[in-house]
């Protein structure tokens, strides 16, 4: 259903429009509504495949939990770790690119994991192989080049949460 796929996109466009305009006057609400209907119709077949996922409160709960955990715990840990490496006079880095497998189905879940890896300091996804389901990740301190070990060190928590939110 094109209309059902258009609604979430229209909602996204409406929120963006209002936030960017910085006002909720009648003019903004009316023009925002018209704009978001047009944008929703244009992107309905591009942005979303299964809109019913958006109606699941469980997914929203896990998304919130993931966001809180990611920004408070994971980000802080990685920042402290990299800051230590930068400030230490011995410069304890052991950089390299490792193979990190992932086990999720949807593109959104895969993107969430990849962006979570890249957004934490110390690890960057440099390439993704969708067919073999692996990321190539540049790691500031390679603990192991064994894919399963590397996954444990880099993306296991991200995958656990992303799967519950998007898959």
């Amino acid at each position, binding site marked *: 259903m094109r209309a059902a796929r258009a609604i979430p996109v229209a909602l*996204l466009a409406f929120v963006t429009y209002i936030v960017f305009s910085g006002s909720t006057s009648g*003019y903004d609400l009316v023009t925002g509504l018209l*704009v978001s209907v047009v944008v929703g119709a244009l*992107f309905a077949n*591009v942005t979303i495949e299964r809109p019913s996922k958006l109606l699941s409160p469980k997914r929203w709960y896990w998304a919130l939990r993931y966001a809180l955990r990611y920004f408070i715990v994971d980000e802080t840990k990685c920042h402290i770790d990299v800051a230590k490496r930068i400030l230490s006079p011995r410069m304890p880095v052991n950089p390299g690119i490792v193979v990190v497998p992932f086990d999720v189905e949807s*593109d959104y879940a895969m993107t969430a994991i990849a962006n979570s890896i890249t957004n934490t300091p110390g690890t960057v996804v440099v*390439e993704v192989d969708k067919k073999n389901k692996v990321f190539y990740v540049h790691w500031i301190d390679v603990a192991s080049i064994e894919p399963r070990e590397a996954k444990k060190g880099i993306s296991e928590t991200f995958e656990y949460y992303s799967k519950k939110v998007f898959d």
Partner: protein
Amino acid sequence: MKRVVSLAVLVTIVLGMSLLLALSGQSFYPSENLRWLAIVYLNTTYNPYLPDFTVRSPESVTAIVWDYRGLDTLYETTVFYLAIIAGLALGRGVKRLNQKPTDESGLSPIVKTVTKITGPMILAVAASIGLHGHLTPGGGFQGGATAAVVPVVFIVVFSSFYLLWKGVSSQRMLTLRSAGLIGIGLTSISLFLAGLLLGLPSYVFQNIAKAGSPLSMPYDVHGALLSGTLWWFNLFEFLAVSSGFTLAFIILMTPEAEEKW
């Protein structure tokens, strides 16, 4: 050696900071002594007490662009339109490739997924820039140029065939562009035509009533400021510019097919 390096770094930082401090005091501040022309514009751009002179738009730049010197902007738009037509003429008779974009074409699936979300967001921001042109800095051209970021990003991220495959063809963009330009033309003569019909004196490119010509575009709808023709000009310019740029990008970035016709 290490000490010399750290000393050099430290000295550079201190000198750089002091240079910044010394110069920041002399940075440019706009003078309070405005030229008389600026005073005229600022006093009339939104001034309900001067109903014969005001544009009823708090954004003086848009007021100047589409009202005080509206004719000039109309011809600028025409020049841009002709440039696009010239580009089309150069590529005439060129058959564009139109194939199904594959999963392999374009950038990684991560970038594709993110672009699927940012695309509608860019368009919403562009529309906001365009539709608030008479209230805040921005306007039809700026909004349209922002909207044109979307087709470029999609061409780069997905495939050069992506737009054509989705039905965004150069013909359709040309139609949209022409509709925008016709809208601009109609807006510019709307009050003149109304004057002819009502038997009242009015001018081409008139927006708000002037001395001797009582006709005004509706500038206020239930308390929401539209600034008369400015809103319509921005809307149509948004259409014309976004579709014009999209057209140019399609011509520039879609490879041509082997055979000719």
